[in-house]
């Protein structure tokens, strides 16, 4: 009995850590590249996008896990998309109602969460094959891993592009803002360098 409990605890820990680092959706699986590149010009929109993804991922994993035994194999993608689209629309309406400025900043990228590969990937790879507890932990791990990555990327870009973070100046007075870092070119350069750094640190450990 104790072994079974320890086994479950290890599985939960493994699942959580997988999303945070070992199978990090951005740095390791290279999924969700569209929002990663598009909304990381500043930390606030990146954090909001991350929270929306956590909400959608959590809700879709719960629903898919609960209905996993009823799913017909050839209709499963349709069911995943229907579930994801519902919760994305709810997140979008919530932002438009209570955070209208942020909703405007994020523009079409909130509705585009519907086609975010991370969510459909977790529904297919985890929630449709596992119980509720594992699916929830997987959603939290993957969601927090994605949000963390977005915030790190956005933090670097915001500091270099404006000399500020969360609109608070953090760079010395002599710092010249590097406007290109706030533009798409800055997103590609920062992401490329970070991916290189991650590969370098984990070299030989694969």
């Amino acid at each position, binding site marked *: 009995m104790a072994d079974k409990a320890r086994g479950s605890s290890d599985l939960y820990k493994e699942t959580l850590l997988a999303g945070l680092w070992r199978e990090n959706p951005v740095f390791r699986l290279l999924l969700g590249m569209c929002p990663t590149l598009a909304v990381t010009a500043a930390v606030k929109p990146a954090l909001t996008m991350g929270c929306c993804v956590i909400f959608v991922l959590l809700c879709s994993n719960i629903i898919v896990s609960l209905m996993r035994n009823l799913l017909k194999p050839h209709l499963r993608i349709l069911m995943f998309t*229907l579930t994801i689209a519902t919760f994305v629309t709810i997140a979008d309406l919530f932002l*438009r109602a209570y955070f209208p400025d942020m909703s405007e900043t994020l523009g079409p990228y909130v509705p585009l969460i519907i086609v975010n590969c991370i969510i459909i990937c977790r529904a297919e790879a985890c929630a449709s094959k596992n119980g509720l507890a594992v699916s929830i932990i997987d959603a939290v791990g993957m969601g927090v891993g994605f949000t963390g990555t977005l915030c790190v990327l956005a933090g670097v870009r915001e500091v270099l592009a404006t000399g500020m973070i969360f609109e608070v100046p953090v760079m010395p007075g002599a710092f010249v803002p590097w406007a290109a870092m706030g533009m798409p070119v800055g997103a590609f350069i920062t992401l490329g360098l970070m991916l290189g750094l991650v590969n370098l640190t984990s070299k030989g450990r694969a």
Partner: protein
Amino acid sequence: MDKVRHFVEQSWLLIVSAFFFGLLLAGTDYALAPTIRQNRIDKLNRLAKGLLAEAEHFIEVEEKIEIESGKGKSKEEITIYKAVGEGEQCVGWSFSVGGPGFQGTIYLVVGVDAGFEKLAGYRVLSSTETPGFGDKIKYDYFREQFEGAPVGELKLVSTGKPEKIDSEIVAISGATISSEAVVAIMNDSVLQVKERMRKKGLIDNGR
């Protein structure tokens, strides 16, 4: 009968889920739609009030104005707001118009005087212009050139005195397309609004 049974067996979960999710979305929309609508009105009023300082409140004109957009390819319905000042007098008009920018559509809130002769200016309601370049259409030094400019054929020039208020608008350096887009909106959509309002008798008759 077998076909129907097969259909139901295969798709019952999809049908039930679609119904359940539809209800969930309808409920969410019902709960949040008034707040979303109010947010939009608040923003428009906030921007319009910044343009027409004498206005105490805005009244939505019941008659909608239809203008052509996309070089006559489509029609757009514009809601006009009458700016009312002290003594319930009309002090100007405000409305939102859009046009193609460098990356996407630029939507502006435009203010004009009571006779629709001079522009009170504009504010950017939404745009996706390049940060640091095209989004300078939001900056005061470019916007102020329109404040008091005649409603008519505005002309974009590359050099000149931005502080001089006339029909010449000095383009933003490095963002000519965005500057052109704003001038085009003023020359095309705003003029169309003026013509339609005149036809409907909303201006030029002392109202």
